């Protein structure tokens, strides 16, 4: 009995020592690199320390079994990216038998919680999805959680990315990710309902109000709004203010929020309230979620919805009542507004970022290159968004008319601004979304709204 006890204790001590050694491995490994390259950024030091070690026995290293984990938020069956990531796991394993990819996804709002907790606890995956724009990913970069990938990117990859699209992936002069597909918000109209109500697809504000009146008279809900989640309403103010104040004025206001308290932005809130007062939205908008809004439109419960082009697969599914009956147009112009019809909401791209503590950064970046391009091209072919990658020679026969329409709209664009919650800081985004909800509930006046907006913090991601 005593002997067994002793053995157990020794065993325990031994295992704990091994664990400690493994834990220290990263730290001691980086020490020589510190001396050799004193001026390399902190985040790359550890990885470079490992790189020479691998070069020594390349043959062995390339055969080494590697597992790379990736977390994402593409879990809806109508989201083509879900399938692309799932397929990439098996495909990539066939291409690189020694690399195994493990993917895991949870839906958007929960993903935000999950990824934050994981990074704080040091349990984040090798590759993680980050929302487009900049304000979401910036705290992670500032905290040193993410790896700049300049040193690993192949020139070949850089040449395949469309010009300008890398800008959104660059922070403080360093590239952190690759673009995938870009999204653009459009006004989606159910042509069947418009025809039945005798309304015209709106090109300007008066026509929009006219269409609302006719649709209401015909017993249709003119516009579906899932304001329980608050961001669908935000999209409306985003675009209305692009029409009333212009994208240029919005960008100025992001830099100097005091400028939000000006005529263009007050007018934007007035226009939104005008729609509310015209009964343009569904009565239960405050309790309807985004998902219910999209499913509702696809089931023919409303005539219009303003959303980004990721909704195409849902609207064109074989089971959707709207299949073949949806057209997309740019948001109507507003006569007295400073904006034009070629100014858009959207234009940025989501990306996948590499953990600074990733053990196999080289392999992770290789997979990132592969995945980003795959999402860019296959995602485009399946109508998930517009490509950030060179699509010369890509088969586009699978594109639906709706996809082609929205791609054509994008080409007319002269300026793009991402969703505001990706530009404003996390806290200000919440404030902004709450304010828009209050405008829509007629709880605050347009002047109060503008006054509150002018108190936000300046932002740098526009």
């Amino acid at each position, binding site marked *: 009995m005593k002997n067994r006890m002793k053995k157990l204790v020794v065993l325990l001590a031994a295992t704990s020592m091994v664990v400690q050694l493994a834990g220290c491995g990263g730290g001691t490994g980086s020490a020589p690199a510190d001396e050799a390259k004193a001026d390399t950024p902190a985040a790359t030091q550890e990885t470079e320390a490992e790189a020479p070690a691998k070069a020594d026995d390349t043959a062995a290293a390339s055969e080494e079994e590697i597992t790379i984990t990736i977390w994402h938020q593409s879990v809806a069956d109508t989201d083509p990216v879900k399938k692309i990531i799932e397929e990439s796991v098996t495909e990539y394993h066939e291409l690189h038998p020694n690399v195994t990819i493990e993917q895991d996804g949870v839906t958007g709002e929960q993903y935000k919680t999950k990824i934050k907790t994981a990074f704080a606890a040091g349990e984040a995956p090798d590759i993680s999805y980050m929302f487009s724009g900049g304000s979401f990913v910036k705290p*992670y970069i500032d905290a040193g959680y993410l790896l700049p990938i300049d040193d690993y990117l192949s020139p070949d990859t850089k040449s395949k990315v469309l010009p300008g699209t890398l800008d959104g992936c660059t922070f403080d002069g360093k590239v952190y990710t690759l673009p995938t597909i870009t999204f653009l918000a459009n006004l989606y109209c159910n042509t069947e309902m418009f025809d039945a109500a005798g309304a015209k697809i709106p090109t300007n504000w008066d026509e929009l109000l006219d269409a609302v009146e006719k649709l209401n008279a015909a017993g249709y809900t003119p516009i579906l709004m899932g304001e329980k989640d608050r961001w669908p309403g935000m999209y409306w103010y985003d675009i209305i203010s692009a029409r009333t104040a212009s994208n240029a004025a919005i960008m100025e206001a992001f830099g100097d929020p005091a400028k939000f308290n000006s005529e263009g932005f007050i007018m934007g809130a007035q226009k939104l309230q005008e729609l509310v007062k015209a009964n343009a939205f*569904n009565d*239960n908008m405050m*309790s309807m979620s985004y998902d219910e809004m999209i499913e509702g439109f696809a089931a023919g419960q409303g005539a219009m919805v303003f959303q980004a082009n990721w909704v195409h697969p849902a609207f064109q599914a074989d089971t959707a009542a709207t299949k073949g009956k949806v057209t997309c147009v740019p948001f109507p112009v507003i006569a007295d507004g400073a904006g034009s019809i070629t100014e858009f909401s959207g234009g940025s791209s989501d990306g996948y970022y590499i953990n600074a503590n990733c053990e196999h950064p080289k392999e992770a970046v290789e997979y990132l290159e592969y995945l980003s391009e795959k999402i860019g091209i296959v995602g485009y072919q399946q109508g998930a968004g517009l490509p950030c990658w060179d699509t010369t020679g890509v088969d586009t026969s699978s594109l639906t008319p709706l996809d082609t329409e929205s791609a054509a709209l994008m080409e007319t664009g002269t300026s793009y601004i991402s969703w505001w919650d990706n530009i404003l800081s996390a806290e200000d985004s919440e404030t902004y979304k709450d304010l828009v909800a209050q405008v829509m*509930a007629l709880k605050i006046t347009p002047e109060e709204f503008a006054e509150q907006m002018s108190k936000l913090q300046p932002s740098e991601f526009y």
Partner: protein
Amino acid sequence: MKKILSNKKAITLFVCPTILIMLVIVVVPIFISAYYSMLDWDGLGKGTFVGLRNYMELAGDERFVNSIKNSLLYVFFSLFIQLPISLLLAIVVANVKRGEKFYRTTYFIPVIISGVVIGQLWQKIYNGDYGLLNALLGSLHLEHLQQDWLGQESTALIAAFIPNLWQYVGYHMLIMYAGIKSISPEIYEAATIDGANSRQIAFKVTIPLLKPVLEVCVTFSLIGALKIFDLIYVLTGGGPFFTTEVPTIYMYKTIFDSFHYGYGSAISIFIILECFVFTMLLKLFFRNKEEQV
């Protein structure tokens, strides 16, 4: 055996693991949270120490005060509506002639369903377009009462509370039921012989003898009410316009949506203290009563 149990060392040895686990997973995190609550921190990078500033801001935060009001209102509903219903059901089910098991199981079913499922269920009941509640009102020709229950400020709070109250009625009923069943039948016989009717038996015999059980129920109900989160989160997410927000939801939103880890931790510490103080008050209240008796 007796020898071992009277050995202080042995007791320490046996109690140690539990105490350690409790310390590591319950007590230590509370102290860590208390430390975080004194930081200005986004939860990712480095925080700066700001002392009690977060607490001072909390005191003047209208949204926070409003969330406390909501949760206290819910405490009121739990104690004065939920528990009496549970008690009534417990007494009735314990005295029912046939199908006692059936009723007991039926009332307990909501308790075993996850809060998120119940939330989804009631969301469909309340839905303004196709919800069961509006459909019911429609079939009773009460169209003027149909409304968007969870979407408007006037009804959202009550509508969000009802599923919570409904869910745990069965839970408290079961505890009370077990208490009633453990009361010796001779006492009832004696009461019947003395000519007490069933209402007198309930008020003069059952309820006084049930006091220790009721005390447990009141404590559980109170703490549960102060910590309520999942159902409201699923049903309304705290909206519209914070009308259904309780401190736990506000805490979640500050930490995970607004990235104010320090401020959110201050709220969590407040919730812990709030629960602690209320439990102490309850204890005091019950003890005073005992002394009076």
